[in-house]
């Protein structure tokens, strides 16, 4: 016996506009416009017609040429690859 699983990522087609905090399973392909935070355990793919303004948290990401994106991105936070922060490398030290 086997189970049929929905493994395809969610799709936001061109012309669709969404605003708010969004969460997806198994990734998302964005062809429309999103304003808000996106979090997923898969891949976020922004196609050339896609527009995203907001933060993204995911495991992988692809921004194709022509797409518009602006926001803070955190990818692979579960990998443990990030260096340990000590106040940031290029930030000025707070004066006492």
């Amino acid at each position, binding site marked *: 016996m086997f189970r049929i699983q929905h493994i395809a990522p969610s799709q936001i087609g061109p012309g669709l506009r969404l605003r708010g905090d969004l969460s997806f399973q198994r990734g998302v392909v964005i062809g429309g416009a999103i304003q808000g935070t996106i979090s997923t355990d898969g*891949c976020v793919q922004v196609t050339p017609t896609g527009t995203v303004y907001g933060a993204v948290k995911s*495991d*992988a*990401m*692809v*921004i*194709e*040429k*022509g*797409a*518009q*994106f*602006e*926001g*803070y*991105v*955190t*990818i*692979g*936070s579960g*990998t443990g*690859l*990030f*260096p340990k922060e000590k106040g940031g*490398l*290029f930030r000025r030290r707070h004066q006492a």
Partner: protein
Amino acid sequence: MKKHTCTCPHCLSTQQESASAISTYCRNCNQYYKIEAPRKRRLVRLPRENRVFTCQTCQWSCRAVPSAISTQCENCGIYLDLRSYRIVGTNGDPLFTYGSIEFASTCAYRAMEAVADQIFVAGRVHAGLRAFTSIELQEKGSVRGWQRAPLIRVVEGASVVALHLEADVVEVFGMLQADTVRARHKLKIHAGGVLVAREISCAGLEVARGAALKGQIYTLQPDAEMVPEPQPVTAENIVLKRETNESVSRAAFFFLSESR
């Protein structure tokens, strides 16, 4: 000289002949015959292809033999250094070469700018780096300065700190911590690669599963031009700047007067 034995087809007598001979007279019957013995082809060293590079002064495509260490531009006549350098200790000499520069892990280089065809960084560099082909950031490489090249690559296992990177393509296999990264075409982070930057601007982005990225991202239009290089301060530049300032101020004055 190498010799081989050949047999006369008329009298079947044998005699020694040079390996390069193609015909001979038989020493027994004095008949002429062609030597048909299979001769090994002599290995001939093929001439190496000339090195082709572009003069950065006049953008002329120049040629030089691969062993040349310097030449002059065929068009503008400027001196072109073709040597490759390896910086090991403390150094601050200005470098401009059409060869490659390798900053070894033991080096501490401090200068305004280093320009080369290819640059490999494994040591500490406090300078701006400009490469005509590529910059490779290797293990323990540290660059406090801007970097500009068509391709910037951070190799696997490297842990690199850099200030400002600007390239057509940026490929990250290791760990890169930078202030700003600008990839005109594509930014690729391969599995196992890490990029932490304050600001990232790119036309296309590819972050593989198993890679890590943190930073503020802005997308560029695909045809966005690279930031113009800082020009040396000359009298002409100052005059130009003054003119542009005047034109701006005139335009502002005109706009204000119109709005009133």
